[in-house]
């Protein structure tokens, strides 16, 4: 039982990290209908800013986070301005591949800054944990869950109360129409990139806290892809539900599969996000909450 609950707790904290990254994907998808494959690189670079301010310059961690978020947002906007802007109106798949090119370039820059070794994030949580009814909950897990709750709340409010939310969705469906309604498509794009980059930065911070930050954080970032698909590419709520579903299945599989279903092979838990994704798509072709594509003749 303790083992099960422990897996559940770990799953929820993993989910919070997936959700952060997944939300970045969703926001850019919502405004551009583009899957931003540069998200892993933004995570690396964002994480690096915080790491740099907190450990190299020795700033207080909250300050490092705030300034890091500004840097991350600026990175997002610069990237959007320089490379995405000229692609307005081009086929979305070309844009998606372009973000892959971007990912390569930004990753190299981030990795050059980071170096190849594992680096300490400078977070205040370390390896501290609280014991709670036989369960060990790490401080950083609690921090991640809280941070996600706050960020998601802010985002939902933003989409609900600001007209930019609607403008973003309109832009995604038909840029020309959005333009005729007076929406500044370029502002929408820049804003969504800034938000996505900041979310990626938080993802990086929580991935890197504790043991340390290094290149493979980018690999984890990719696991947010099945998460967004499970939730539905354009659904914020979907990203959260998807993250929970995927992460909890993953930790449960990691705990129990080697023992109870060894024939599925080693490292199967890493496959679980994709298996969950396939199962969901089998029944819901647009994910759990994705907007259905309208077809009429």
């Amino acid at each position: 039982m303790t083992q099960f609950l422990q897996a559940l707790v770990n799953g929820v904290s993993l989910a919070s990290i997936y959700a952060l990254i997944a939300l970045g994907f969703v926001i850019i998808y919502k405004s551009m209908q583009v899957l931003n494959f540069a998200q892993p690189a933004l995570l690396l670079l964002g994480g690096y800013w915080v790491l740099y301010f907190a450990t190299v310059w020795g700033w207080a961690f909250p300050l490092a986070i705030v300034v890091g978020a500004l840097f991350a947002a600026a990175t997002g906007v610069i990237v959007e301005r320089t490379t995405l802007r000229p692609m307005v109106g081009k086929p979305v798949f070309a844009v998606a591949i372009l973000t892959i090119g971007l990912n390569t370039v930004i990753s190299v820059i981030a990795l050059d800054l980071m170096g190849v070794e594992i680096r300490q994030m400078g977070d205040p949580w370390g390896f501290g944990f609280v014991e709670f009814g036989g369960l060990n909950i790490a401080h950083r897990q609690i921090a991640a869950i809280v941070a996600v709750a706050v960020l998601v709340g802010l985002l939902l409010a933003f989409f609900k109360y600001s007209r930019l939310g609607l403008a973003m969705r309109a832009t995604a469906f038909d840029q020309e129409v959005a333009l005729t309604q007076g929406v500044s498509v370029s502002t929408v794009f820049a804003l969504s990139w800034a938000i996505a980059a900041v979310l990626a930065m938080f993802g990086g911070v929580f991935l890197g806290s504790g043991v340390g930050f290094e290149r493979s954080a980018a690999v984890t970032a990719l696991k947010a892809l099945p998460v967004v698909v499970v939730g539905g590419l354009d659904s914020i709520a979907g990203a959260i539900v998807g993250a929970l579903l995927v992460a909890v299945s993953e930790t449960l599989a990691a705990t129990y599969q080697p023992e109870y279903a060894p024939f599925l092979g080693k490292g199967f838990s890493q496959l679980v996000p994709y298996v969950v994704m396939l199962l969901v798509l089998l029944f819901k072709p647009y994910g759990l909450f994705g907007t259905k594509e309208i077809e009429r003749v």
Partner: protein
Amino acid sequence: GDDDAETTTTTAATTTTVAGTTAATTTLPPEPEVAFDLGVTPSPCADAVNEGNGCIYLGVISDLTDGPFAPLGVPLTQAQEDFWAEVNAAGGIDGWDVVITAENTIDAHYDPTQTAEGAVTLADRVLGLAQSLGTPQTLGALPTLVEGDIVAAPATWFSGWAFTDVDAGLIMESGAPYCFEAMNGMEGLYDLRGGTPFTWALVAFPGDYGGDYGAGAKIAAAQLGLGDPVAEILQIPVSFGGSVAETVPALLAAQPDVIVMVTGPTEMAQVAGGLFQNGMTSFQILGAGPTWNVALKGNADLMPLLEAVYVGTSPWAGWDTDTEGHAAMRAAAENHGRTPSGSYVAGWTWQYPWLALLTEAIASGDLTRSNVAAIAATLEDIDYQGILPTRTYAGTPNDHVVRSTFLNQADADTSDGLNPLTDAFVGTIAADFDLAAPCFVG
């Protein structure tokens, strides 16, 4: 120039003959009698230190950016660059300079396919490989090496390199193979723990690195009466999409006294961190040479915890050791602005066989690849300037294989993060083991 030569006396000592002829060779073209084919030019290297020397090109296939051993691959490669820079600065080898250019350095990301591809790419550009990183990787490239008579110094301690039917006599290994390193490690740890039996788990990379070290650990465990590992986990490198997500719960469930980690530093740190975070503290880690990386000591949260649990084996002594070779290495590192690390020591050490080989080949007047390969297969009297005992590749594996190992403890106060617990030692299990085939457990 002379002053430089003074400061690098230790290197000059190994190339006394070269130093002696420096004045003459700077004005004369290289000996016309020396035959050569690929990877060698009679004209000087680009930006040559010695304008009059011919140039020998060595290639490197390493893991430089995003593979599991990139933290090791970079200092390793730097050490090798520096090694030859020092040799050249001291006048070269009898009229020849040796260089590793950026063009001939291939980042194969610890991928066997890319390593093999790298070998093909370098095949008509270099005389041999100053480094080929990774066991399965080097095995993948071997057909190309055989085809082109390309000699390579491996960045791996696979026990198979001792066998001519495995390496075609082309791989010039240094130090004790993983298999013996693990036997010594288990035996040494057993003694350190006061000779009381312990439970143990094995976490290993797939392939011959994990397989070889794992075999040694199992053989030793069997002989020490420790029995089978309570958990045996194949750890896929994180940079290959692997994760410690299954490893940590499995170890938490098994609660072994000792975890033998045959992985990269990242995986080790993540596993250790995961265990700490879940409240598990009373265990020890036995790591292989490549499991450790100096950067770990920079992690102020993790390192204090690691100091308590981490014990690592290594085939030779660490950075701060006092031998002629270590001193030369430290001087070179300082010259080139490198920071201390175990990998730098390794990269440096692996070049001694090449130095011996080139010296002999030049002396023989034939730098063609086939001749160089022929000499390499039975090369003798390789002098490591005290880092390792002088060794040979002639004879059967049991004759020439090195069996000695160092045991170290994580320690933030040393240059490379490891503090030696022992001198070089050969445990009884390793000493008695009959190396009839490469180690690997069924």
